[in-house]
């Protein structure tokens, strides 16, 4: 898929080491506009580091990141957000004293094509509706449950009007009912045309949502392709089993 279309997000030989540990090593791939790309790999395979390099939380040692052809490798995170890269965290990190609405609102006000205050407030309420917690709009984020905070975080990421949304294990810690609810939200996001890079251990979710999967191991991309093909490959099962075999259903 990456060959025949100009990638919206292009990673080229990305490398990042922490001390002597090579967390990400010469990773290259393109993500096409509107694509949902799943990133799989055992713990420690460099998935989160890769997201950090794309979002700007970490600076790459080598390699380039491009968004719509523009080199963003050296831009700070806040600028990348305004250019259209949003992310959620494995460990949710809302602004805990602010209300759910304010969390989304502040993201909308400082995102791409930010409208005036009143319009931003209205749109933020709509986003809370999309993720299904409009009723908790005025509750401080610290008082919300884990699932509710994840919903706020997704709404907050969407509020920046991203072109690319990076989701870091959004389903971790959720029970099966909550996973289904979250999948419904992701389907709505997918159908709205936003490009998504999804890091997730839940294979069922990856299979249900993603157009394409890349498997990382030891910081390198091992294999990529359509979900069903990739998940059937022996080297993937080998890389993956033992760590997260319980997720295979």
């Amino acid at each position, binding site marked *: 898929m990456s060959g025949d279309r100009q990638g919206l997000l292009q990673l080229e030989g990305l490398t990042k080491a922490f001390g002597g540990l090579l967390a990400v090593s010469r990773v290259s791939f393109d993500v096409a506009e509107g694509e949902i790309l799943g990133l799989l790999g055992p713990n420690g395979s460099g998935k989160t580091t890769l997201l950090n390099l794309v979002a700007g939380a970490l600076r790459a040692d080598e390699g380039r990141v491009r968004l719509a052809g523009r080199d963003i490798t050296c831009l700070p995170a806040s600028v990348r957000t305004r250019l259209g890269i949003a992310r959620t965290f494995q460990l949710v990190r809302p*602004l805990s004293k*602010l209300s759910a609405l304010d969390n989304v609102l502040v993201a909308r*006000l*400082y995102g791409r094509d930010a409208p005036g205050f009143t319009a931003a407030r209205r749109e933020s309420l709509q986003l809370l509706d999309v993720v299904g917690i409009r009723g908790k709009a005025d509750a401080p984020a610290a008082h919300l449950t884990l699932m509710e905070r994840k919903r706020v975080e997704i709404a907050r990421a969407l509020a920046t009007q991203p072109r690319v949304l990076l989701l870091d294990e959004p389903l971790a810690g959720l029970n099966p009912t909550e996973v289904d609810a979250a999948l419904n939200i992701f389907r709505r996001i997918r159908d709205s045309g936003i490009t998504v890079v999804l890091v997730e251990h839940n294979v069922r979710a990856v299979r249900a949502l993603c157009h394409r999967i890349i498997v990382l191991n030891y910081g390198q991309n091992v294999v990529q392709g359509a979900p069903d093909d990739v998940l059937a490959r022996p080297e993937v099962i080998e890389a993956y089993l033992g760590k997260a075999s319980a997720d295979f259903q």
Partner: protein
Amino acid sequence: MTILLQNAVFGLLIGGLYGLGAVGLSLVFGVLAVLNVAHGELIMLGGYVSVWLFTLWRVDPFVSVLAAGPLLFLGGAALFRLLFTRLASYSEEVRIKNSILIGFGLALVLQTLAILAWGADERAVTPSYAGRVAAIGNVVVPLSRLGAMALAFLVLGGLHLFLTRTRAGTALRATADDDQAATLVGIPIGRIYLTAFALGSALAGVAGALVSVSDAISPAIGLGWTLKALIVIVLGGMGNIFGTFVAGLFLGVAESMSGFLLGNAYREVVGLVMFLIVLSVRPRGLFSR
């Protein structure tokens, strides 16, 4: 009874200024984790703006507020760029420690500059209505202090609206909550830091001009105001505007009552004792949930 009530009224009126004086410091500390112990000196400078406008052109001190606020806003922005910008890249703990050192240095410099420029004498503003009072029953209310209190309340209401109903205000609250998370939603926190410090300084300027309405201004008043502000912030809880204002009123009343009941020597002591008790029993402030 009347005399008790009279003391309470005086306490409330001075307490409004304590509240306003503390809010700027609280805002700066909340957003930047910078404890600007020269905040009282900024209040002193605000007082001098009013004194000079009155001395030169007979400008009413309530009007001078409109000059003291913006002037200190600009001055605060300059001070931040000069002295505090570099701290932003350090951890919170390092920032607090170093900002206290920088603040003490700044306080000494500002105080000395004020003495050089204007002498060490006390200066007062004497508008025509200076001595006028309104009598309610047997209790007298000095009009100038009542006006200062009302204006302080208006300014705090305005600040509340700014923080909750504007883009920059929302970003300020987000940055105060978690500056890393704020960066991630695209907030340029460097600019927010600058805004917060300038705004905190402007609030000090406004407070200083209002102090001049009823009290004399001298280069030495700064430290006293910084201390009051710290007590009020601890009583009211960090980052809670109306909590801070109410704590200011509370401190004002407590001081004037104890001054009356125990003797004037104990005025200041009571505030400090409350400070210690609250710190040890309710370290997040009287009004925290």
